[in-house]
């Protein structure tokens, strides 16, 4: 290690210590900023200290959960270096790498979609796992297309020894593996859990190669599924790692049969929904590339519990509270689909904020399928800075006015819902990012959850 790198690390760590001391929160990006100022090309030597290599995980939806799953699988054999979900840009990655303990031997880094090309170029990863590209409420003007084309450029200059772990169910992601040698494709293969039709608002409707609309044999979520182009130039690639016989068991969890190059086994997740099946497949396939047999990874995943606001379950006064983060229509639809079997006689809190981290524009709630989402629900409370917009949305989804309440304060809305639930009842909270953060802070002060940066890292 050069003297400059060593000095940069010392400075970054001192900055981190200082920001913790002054109580400015997790200090997840400033140290990295300082590091890169001193050593602008310092990411590669930093990452090279991880002797078993670095795995990068990116996607619009599910990268935090996938990275957490992969880290928990690898954690039995390695000291894993992992970044928190809020620190997935270059400065956050630099912070994570500069402050990792000396014993750390392998890196699992969740990376922002736009930052991936630069970070992948800098850290020479052993593998890159790519899950999906959705338009979300923050980038609704063609940025998805821009990210996709940057990912194509990245893959074109990737060294042959970097393995791509790709979600074949997403046409854009599947196509990235076209010319690369080391590729492992994963996906779902079970018509029984497919949706009846594809959502009109879904992305990537047209063939990446010729522009014709794809024909879907199965749709699993959003634009993910088994598709082919009618002109015959692109169809979903053969699955190396596949989930079959999927059994969705509401919020309690999900079971499926895993078929992989090294054999077949059953995977039982404590997380609900098809998108967690996709996350688990990504984690298992990645762990396989890094030397963990798929059956071993599956076994380790059975104990995996949710990260911050991603189907976190906590007990409050005897009630079971389930926290679900929602940030785009696809994620929200999948969350609603997961709670639907158990929503009868439950209390639901929907919290919509419009701060920058949530997206200032709340139009996207009209792309969420609230119609028939809450059969038999006891009460729905709309809250957050845009509570009124949510209430209007639910009115047009034919939600009974008698079950609907509106109140701007997220914590009061939560407390009222808990109180309204029967002693052994259930409360579902769907909240956008900053609303979840606010609620989480209060729950953590009450000793009910761990602080966000602990939970996420």
């Amino acid at each position, binding site marked *: 290690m050069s003297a400059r790198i060593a000095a940069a690390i010392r400075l970054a760590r001192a900055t981190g210590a200082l920001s913790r001391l002054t109580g400015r929160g997790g200090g997840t990006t400033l140290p990295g900023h300082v590091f890169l100022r001193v050593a602008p090309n310092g990411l590669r030597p930093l990452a090279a200290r991880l002797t078993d290599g670095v795995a990068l995980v990116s996607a619009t939806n599910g990268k935090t959960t996938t990275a957490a799953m992969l880290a928990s699988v690898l954690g039995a054999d390695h000291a894993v270096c992992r970044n928190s979900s809020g620190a997935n840009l270059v400065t956050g990655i630099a912070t994570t790498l500069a402050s990792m303990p000396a014993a750390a031997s392998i890196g699992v880094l969740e990376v922002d979609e736009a930052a991936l090309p630069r970070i992948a170029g800098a850290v020479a990863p052993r593998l890159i796992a790519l899950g999906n590209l959705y338009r979300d409420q923050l980038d609704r003007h063609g940025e998805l297309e821009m990210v996709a084309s940057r990912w194509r450029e990245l893959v074109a200059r990737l060294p042959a020894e970097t393995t791509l772990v790709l979600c074949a169910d997403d046409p854009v992601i599947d196509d990235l593996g076209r010319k690369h040698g080391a590729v492992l494709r994963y996906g779902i293969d079970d018509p029984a859990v497919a949706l009846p039709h594809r959502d009109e608002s879904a992305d990537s409707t047209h063939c990446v190669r010729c522009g014709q609309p794809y024909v879907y044999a199965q749709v699993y979520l959003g634009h993910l599924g088994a598709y082919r182009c009618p002109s015959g130039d692109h169809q979903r690639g053969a699955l190396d790692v596949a989930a079959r016989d999927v059994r969705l068991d509401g919020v309690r969890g999900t079971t499926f049969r895993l078929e992989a190059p090294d054999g077949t086994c059953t995977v039982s997740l404590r997380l609900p929904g098809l998108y967690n099946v996709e996350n688990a497949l990504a984690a298992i396939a990645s762990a396989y590339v890094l030397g963990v047999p798929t059956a071993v990874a599956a076994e380790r995943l059975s104990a995996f519990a949710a990260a911050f606001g991603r189907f976190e379950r906590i007990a409050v006064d005897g009630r079971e509270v389930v926290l679900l983060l929602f940030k785009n229509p696809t994620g929200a639809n999948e969350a609603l689909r997961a709670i639907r079997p158990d929503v009868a006689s439950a209390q639901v809190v929907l919290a919509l904020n419009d701060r920058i981290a949530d997206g200032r524009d709340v*139009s996207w709630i*009209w792309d969420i399928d609230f119609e028939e989402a809450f059969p038999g629900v006891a009460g729905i409370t709309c809250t957050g800075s845009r509570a009124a917009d949510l209430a209007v949305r639910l009115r047009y989804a034919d939600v009974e006015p008698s079950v609907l309440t509106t109140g701007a304060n997220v914590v009061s809305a939560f407390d009222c819902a808990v109180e309204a639930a029967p002693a052994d009842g259930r409360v579902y909270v769907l909240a956008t990012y900053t609303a979840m953060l606010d609620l989480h802070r209060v729950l953590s002060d009450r000793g009910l959850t761990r602080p966000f940066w602990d939970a996420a890292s």
Partner: protein
Amino acid sequence: MTIRIVALYPELLSIYADRGNVRVLAQRARWRGLDVALAPVRLGEALDPATADVILIGGGQDRDQALVAEALISQAPALRSAIADGVPVLAVCGGYQLLGHRYVDQSGAATPGAGLVDLETIAGSDRLIGNVLVRVELGGAEHDLVGFENHAGRTLLGAGVQPFGRVEAGAGNDGVSGLEGCRVERVIGTYVHGPLLPKNPWLADQLLAWACEHNGLSPDLQALDDTLELAAAAAAAELARVERR
């Protein structure tokens, strides 16, 4: 009798949840006991002007906009005939731009539009983004139009074209003129998405009244309880005032 709502190319023109506008129109018709037929026109299909009582055109991703422009130009005669027959048209964002003669991008290259309204759009170097509040005079009454705008295009209206409204807070057509949208008879273009009909029920009802009239039904619509809509509109208007004055 059935009110026939036609959304043009919803598979491509729904970037800002434009299907919310369809949903609101349909529900407000149903709540008044009217039957509703949703008849989207998809890429490659032809619009039959005799089968529409109201036409909605949404916004798309830049990539898809050129594809749609071509299709829309081919449908311009059908659209013209529907408009001449009194069918209302609501065009939002990208759909609004496509009503005009052309869209000139930052490199100076022009994509032709359907040429239904005398206006043109030139891309600016930055996007105009935020909550927006517009004063609109329609049907002899003044209304607040609230919602969100997010566009790079600056739209210039031809000499004989009226704006839809005047900007109280926000950017509107070009960020400088204080004008928002366009209106020619029953053709309305606007940058206000949101989608805009949920928080502007007066506009939804005006479109419905015109649609009823076109269908030979009474345009006098029974009043609905819009407490929730008006609360959301008031909150959004306040946001626009605070942010963008």
